[in-house]
């Protein structure tokens, strides 16, 4: 079974530039998550999709971050414009489903390490 795919693996940009990350979840997984992991901290959820609908984006800085999951499969996360504090690893994860009373484990991709200079 193929795992969660992410690209690129590494990205270096200057502040105020734009960047986009791509994620392809495990086939059949309805729920897709984007996390931000800053060095020395645990992953922080940015946005969660159930199929192509947003379940939770309460921690997404919407003035600069956006995400979409067209057709309920692949997803892209965009930052525009980037700030120095956006330097982090961006992790994509997927699970079979999610919801009240349901909790499947999440499968994580390798992440994209973003450095903003």
């Amino acid at each position, binding site marked *: 079974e193929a795992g*969660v795919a992410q690209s690129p693996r590494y990205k270096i940009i200057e502040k105020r530039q734009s960047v986009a990350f791509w994620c392809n979840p495990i086939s059949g997984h309805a729920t897709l998550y984007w996390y931000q992991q800053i060095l*020395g*901290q*645990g*992953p*922080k*959820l940015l946005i*969660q999709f159930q199929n192509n609908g947003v*379940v*939770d984006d*309460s921690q997404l800085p919407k003035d600069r971050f956006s995400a979409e999951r067209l057709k309920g499969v692949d997803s892209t996360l965009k930052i525009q414009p980037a700030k120095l504090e956006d330097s982090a690893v961006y*992790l994509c*994860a997927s699970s079979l489903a*999610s*919801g*009240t*009373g349901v*909790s499947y*484990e*999440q*499968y*994580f*991709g*390798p*992440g994209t390490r973003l450095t903003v200079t």
Partner: protein
Amino acid sequence: AQSVAQPEDQVNVAEGNPLTVKCTYSVSGNPYLFWYVQYPNRGLQFLLKYITGDNLVKGSYGFEAEFNKSQTSFHLKKPSALVSDSALYFCAVRDMWTDDKIIFGKGTRLHILP
């Protein structure tokens, strides 16, 4: 709102000795609890989870965790540590009924000494 605490930044254990990585949590209702491991330059890998049932949960690579409701803890354990267990370990919690978001701890670096 739920929260999770991993009180140790790093745990050092000699190879062959038992290991424990601590985790305590706070939720308003009943918890779902998880342990994930992260190897260098790789994403998180699922180790085990507690949903309901037996308080002792067995997972991958010989790891197990014990759910203790009275102490609100979910410590990760292994009877005999291997050098290959050296990695970053994350505890995570989700409230079963009130919120869909999983909260991760800050992580504990486990260093197994040969």
